[in-house]
């Protein structure tokens, strides 16, 4: 009974700033110690970074901005890149209108990026073009929203790939050819990443299906292919493609260097994708294909209509993860002498006017890679949640 007569101290504050601090930073004595330690570490890193950024000479980036974006793509043809970007803006806007959900965030994010860039002191034409892109996103949204044309937008996306290739590379008379050797910077990075993704996906699925096949010969072949490719570093494959592909082909066929590394990326990523897809195939119950068989579907139909849709859906996060690492790996082509973003950076740090500015240059391109890779992984997590993968 004595406990009732004593006056209890009021309970610790558990709301407000003080309560939050107490709960999250100073709950026990060692937590408090840890907090102070981390704070000290953060302070050191933050001041170092702040000093690095404020004392940096960002001229090296602004002067070379065009190099970073399109490399040695001829200036008088640069409008073609702008047209492609505008076309993609329109398509992203249209996807927002057709699907909503995650596409809204994507479209708004890209719109915000254009807006920020338009506020920076570029030339008037560039800023007008950036503003026009925002308008295009809005227009695409409006049209697709009214028409509710999902199928049309999907078709438009598919058509945009060859159209982009034609626009950038050129066709016989109408547009002068720009050989891929002149492509560079972010343009080449995206070219490598997108073509690598598009080409490696079907090959990866085929390899995965082959590895699961009931035909021993196909199984052994696919397994060997996958394991050998996965056992060696990407750089050796790119190196091999760069110097050996020409040896494997007759003298009459000559392949552009960009195409050679695309082939390298494709077989490398396909081997990794195959393992991801195999995980998905194994997750589809045997009963699914047995039921399909009982309904008289042939094996190709079972694969196409029953197994693959479920398998691919189950592994979306891992697939996106693979594409992100492909995107980061495009930087390796700098080692075999191509001038994508990293290659350009390596060239820029050797310019006479900007000697010793490695920190600025590499931080700048690291930021570009980070923004792209981080938004991809963020979008994939959102998509995962929307589809409810792993919750059924």
């Amino acid at each position, binding site marked *: 009974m004595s406990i009732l007569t004593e006056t209890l101290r009021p309970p610790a504050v558990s709301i407000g700033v003080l309560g939050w601090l107490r709960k999250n930073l100073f709950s026990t004595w060692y937590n408090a110690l840890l907090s102070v330690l981390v704070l000290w570490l953060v302070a050191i890193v933050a001041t170092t970074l702040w000093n690095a950024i404020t004392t940096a000479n960002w001229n090296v980036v602004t002067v070379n901005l065009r190099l970073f974006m399109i490399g040695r793509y001829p200036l008088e043809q640069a409008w073609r890149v702008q047209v492609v970007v505008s076309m993609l803006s329109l398509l992203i806007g249209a996807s927002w209108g057709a699907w909503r959900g995650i596409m809204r965030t994507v479209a708004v994010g890209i719109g915000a990026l254009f807006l920020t860039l338009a506020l920076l002191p570029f030339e008037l034409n560039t800023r007008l073009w950036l503003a026009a892109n925002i308008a295009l996103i809005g227009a695409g949204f409006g049209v697709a929203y009214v028409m509710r044309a999902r199928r049309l937008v999907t078709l438009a996306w598919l058509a945009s790939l060859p159209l982009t290739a034609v626009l950038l590379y050129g066709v016989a008379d109408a547009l002068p050819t720009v050989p891929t050797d002149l492509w560079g910077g972010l343009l080449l990075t995206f070219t490598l990443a997108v073509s690598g993704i598009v080409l490696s996906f079907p090959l990866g699925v085929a390899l995965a299906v082959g590895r699961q096949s009931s*035909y021993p010969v196909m199984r052994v072949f696919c397994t060997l292919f996958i394991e050998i490719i996965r*056992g060696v570093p990407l750089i*050796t494959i790119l*190196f091999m493609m760069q110097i050996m592909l020409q040896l494997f082909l007759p003298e009459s066929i000559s392949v552009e260097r960009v195409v050679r590394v695309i082939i390298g990326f494709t077989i490398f990523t396909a081997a990794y994708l195959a393992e991801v897809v195999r995980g998905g195939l194994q997750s589809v119950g045997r009963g699914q294909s047995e039921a399909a068989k009982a309904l008289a579907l042939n094996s190709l139909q079972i694969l196409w209509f029953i197994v693959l849709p479920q398998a691919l859906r189950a592994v979306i996060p891992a697939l996106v993860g693979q594409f992100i690492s492909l995107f980061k790996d495009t930087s390796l082509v700098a080692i075999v002498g191509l001038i994508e973003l990293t290659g350009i950076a390596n060239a820029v740090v050797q310019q006479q006017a900007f000697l010793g500015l490695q920190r600025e240059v590499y931080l700048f391109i690291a930021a570009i890679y980070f923004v792209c890779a981080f938004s991809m992984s963020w979008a994939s997590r959102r998509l995962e949640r929307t589809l409810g993968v792993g919750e059924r």
Partner: protein
Amino acid sequence: MASLSRSPAVPLWRDVRVLRIAAQIIFIAVVLLVGWWFADNMSRGLTRMGSKFSFDFLQSAASFALAESPIPYDTDKSYGYAFVVGALNTLRVAVVGIVLASLLGLLMGIARLSSNWLLANLARVYVEAFRNTPLLIQLLFWYLAVILKLPAVRQSIELPGSVFLNNRGLTVPWFETKDSFTTWLLTACAGLVVGIVLYELVGRRWQAERHLSQRVLWAALSVLAVASVSAIVLDPFTPTVPTLQGFNFNGGLSLSPEYVALLFGLVMYTGAFIAEIVRAGILAVPRGVNEASRALGLSYAQTLRLVTVPLALRVIIPPLTNQYLNLTKNSSLAVAIGYADLFYVSSTIFNQTGQTVQVIVLVMGAYLLMSLTISVVMNFVNARFKLIER
């Protein structure tokens, strides 16, 4: 009914068994045809370039210098020997990198789950920043923008414990071996044998009597005891502390800037991935399992050692194996910052000899061998922790 199950009237081109075999034969034929076409083009190409497919060039003198080598190397040594030096340099960075990345990943993975908001978010920022930027750029940044920009040797940054950091790399205290080192090594090996015997024989009996195993501890203790007692008696090491003399350091172990940048970059990059794996592994152990083991009377330490960690390891080990493989393969990016690893040496050999195919075959073979070794070791570890299903 018999005619339904065994119909003799199926023609050959609709018989599934025949079709299966035919499909495989066609597949082999196509593969062989394409392979033959490649091989034919290649042999023509080689004749055109005036070289032939042989590994004889490996015996001729390599006449290029290597900045660092764990075994004695000079320009008179053969290409084959230089190749081995490259492989050893790769192993040197990969083994140390795997150990350090595991430690960093473990710490950061646990920090990510900490109830301390600041620590958890620091770990999160680290993971996101390092996972989402290319390793090559991180390496170039550490090498060109950080390590080469450090002060010169005379103005070295001194860290606690006689560790010196400057633009020529890192110098740490190390030790030299005396003549008694071999004897010590032998006694230590004998101690290891004793430990294994203890673990296998005596420990098993203890385990039967006491229910809970302490045998790992006792076996490890006995090995340590033998090693340290003999170390005191034989005194096989002389510690050397780096001291600045003139324009260089005397004593200690000096690590080249390339090695430091590569190791640091690989550890920071792979550590971020391992942190995510550790976090996922710990989260995969259901809370109820821990609570149940506490309810059964196990102490917190016992729960951790006997329940949580083994269950988490089952989830962690397979993806961890992949990260170890990635680290080893990623060490080939050393070529970008000029560390004399396997790939760097091989591309130098290629540039000098022009023996395209042979060099590629050798490099790929060496990396495959390393990958295979790591896989075998990790599969063995995995087998020990795997859930034994009925």
